[in-house]
């Protein structure tokens, strides 16, 4: 029936469907329940972040990647626009945004340059333990100063000998009167060389049999404390403008006022911070993937081969279709994870899914983008090789792809066990 209609009045039918499409007015108000619409405020946040990324980050990103120089002017600008430190509560002079709003901003910044986005994200991660577990004085002191000047902070947990295995941390903190003396070595610390203060996780319980949930303590350490030795800037594969360093703590004295919550509470705080920042990392990966998709599509619309544009070849258009599928799904995954934690619910399952999936697809999409560019994709004059190098770390930091799978399996199977 439909086929006959199409044959007879094909044009008319096409016109009918098209007119139906253009007639539908997007409903402005959300119905209760599922809603994919952003609020006015969220759209405006996104617009500001997008404008900043397209107009200020993108023109200079390749140069920062080449030199590895820390993008101080961009960070200052992001701070001025309010795009940094978005989680800091209003009582400390911040915006007090939830994870969802922060994710929108992060995706837009990552579209411009993930190196810069990671530097900014390093701040959010370092601040998160203080935001969730700090007392009034700690928050006013350490979060307050971040809103007064464009300062950086860092999250110091990983060590040369322990990354995924947080329970294997060796950095020791010994209580001596009203102070703690910290000895140990941290590695791969984002913003390590630029931070004003660190969130540090150290072992306070010397009993090797003590459970991880009781053996560690979270400290706030000022970066200029004597004994803090900052290592050289590491030259990485991607996100090269981000500052990654090893830091040695040699008899670093920290007052007991800088202990978060109390002795032994460190592990829970450190993991709690991840629940809030994991969606952000996923959002960053999606921003990168979106950029790769956009660059590849634009190129495929221009480049011709065998007498036709690349997009007209099914092999290429299928590649683009799969890239598009991955980006859309990854976006929905992080949005769900961010929304869950903003609702006040435990979002571990969704956050891990979002991070695992988006890290993986970012790598696939970036690699496919290089493929679509062909020989040019391999070349540093074109933007996609940077994306492919930048993407790899998303499968590693903030919980490796393998750790995420462990978490997802545990959460998933746990649902069936009862």
């Amino acid at each position, binding site marked *: 029936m439909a086929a006959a209609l199409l044959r007879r009045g094909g044009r008319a039918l096409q016109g009918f469907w098209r007119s139906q499409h*253009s*007639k*539908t007015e997007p409903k402005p108000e959300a119905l209760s329940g599922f809603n994919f619409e952003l609020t006015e405020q969220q759209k*405006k946040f996104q617009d*500001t972040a997008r404008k900043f990324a397209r107009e200020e980050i993108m023109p200079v990103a390749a140069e920062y990647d080449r030199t590895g120089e820390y993008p101080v002017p961009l960070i200052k600008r992001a701070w001025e626009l*309010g795009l940094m430190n978005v989680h800091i509560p209003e009582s400390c002079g911040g*915006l007090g945004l939830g994870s969802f709003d922060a994710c929108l*901003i992060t995706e837009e910044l990552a579209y411009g340059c993930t190196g810069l986005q990671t530097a900014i994200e390093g701040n959010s991660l370092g601040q998160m333990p203080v935001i969730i577990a700090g007392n009034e004085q700690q928050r006013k002191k350490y979060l307050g100063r971040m809103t007064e000047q464009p300062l950086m902070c860092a999250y110091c947990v990983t060590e040369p000998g322990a990354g995924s295995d947080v329970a294997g941390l060796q950095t020791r903190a010994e209580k001596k009167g009203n102070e703690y003396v910290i000895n140990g070595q941290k590695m791969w610390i984002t913003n390590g060389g630029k931070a004003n203060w660190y969130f540090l996780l150290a072992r306070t319980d010397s009993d090797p049999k003590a459970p991880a949930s009781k053996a560690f303590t979270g400290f706030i350490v000022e970066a200029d404390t004597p004994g803090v030795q900052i290592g050289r800037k590491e030259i990485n594969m991607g996100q090269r403008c981000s500052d990654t360093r090893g830091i040695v703590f040699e008899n670093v004295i920290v007052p007991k006022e800088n202990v978060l919550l109390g002795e032994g509470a460190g592990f829970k705080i450190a993991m709690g911070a991840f629940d809030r920042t994991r969606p952000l990392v996923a959002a960053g990966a999606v921003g990168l993937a979106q950029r790769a998709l956009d660059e590849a599509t634009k190129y495929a619309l221009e480049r011709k081969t065998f007498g036709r544009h690349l997009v007209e070849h099914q092999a290429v258009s299928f590649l683009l279709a799969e890239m598009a599928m991955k980006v859309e799904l990854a976006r929905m995954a992080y949005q769900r994870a961010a929304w869950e934690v903003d609702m006040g619910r435990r979002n571990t399952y969704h956050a891990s899914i979002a991070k695992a999936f988006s890290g993986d697809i970012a790598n696939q999409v970036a690699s496919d983008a290089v493929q679509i560019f062909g020989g040019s994709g391999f070349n540093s004059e074109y933007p996609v090789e940077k994306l492919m190098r930048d993407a790899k770390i998303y499968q590693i930091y903030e919980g490796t792809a393998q750790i995420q799978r462990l978490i997802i399996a545990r959460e998933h199977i746990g649902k069936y066990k009862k």
Partner: protein
Amino acid sequence: MAELRALVGVKRVIDYAVKIRVKPDKTGVVTDGVKHSMNPFCEIAVEEAVRLKEKKLVKEVIAVSCGPKQCQETLRTALAMGADRGIHVEVPESEAERLGPLQVSRVLTALAQKEKAGLVLLGKQAIDDDCNQTGQMTAAMLDWPQGTFASKLTLEGDKVTVEREIDGGLETIRLKLPAVVTADLRLNEPRYATLPNIMDYEAARALGGHESQPPSSPVCGPPAFACSSLPLYLQLVPIGTRTCFLSSSNHGESSTLKLFPL
């Protein structure tokens, strides 16, 4: 602090980055569901007005937009950029297509006189019709001097020095206020709405907004800069071939002007 009031016209147009598509019936361009934003030259005009206010050369910046209710979006952007008040001259959707520079300049003329504006700042042209007429016509109707294609603006007392970009190069003229100036590309770099500004503005809007009202609901400025209440007035304004009247109503902090065909 100066007594000068700046009236800034802002137009809601299809966003510059959108790929325009012609409607299947060839009667125009697809606008449904297409991203719209403030005309870039109007943004530059708003930015200039706000900068003058920050330099304390202008007392109040009033943004005006003519068109259907979606224009309130554009006015909100102007308010978030720093304008004090927004006036939405509501034109029903069916009439909006016939709204052109002649009609808009008549409205701006009436408003400039009503609001006792000393400076009318407009974008040099809109990016959808590229008419480049509204500023010039408004100046003529008001019988005020005009400085169009301004790439530099300096206010000194009751005079304004305008550096214009013209075909032959740059021309500098000095106008006695009140005057009409139209903004060109290099006049300034419009500010972003920073996140704290957006939040403050949205919070104020939530406090003082009349969201639940019917389409003719007014545009609000943040309560902190509450509008003075407008007296009811009636003025005959010829619009196209029909004469309409401009009426204003006072809803507390906000104002709506409606064009009623006679």
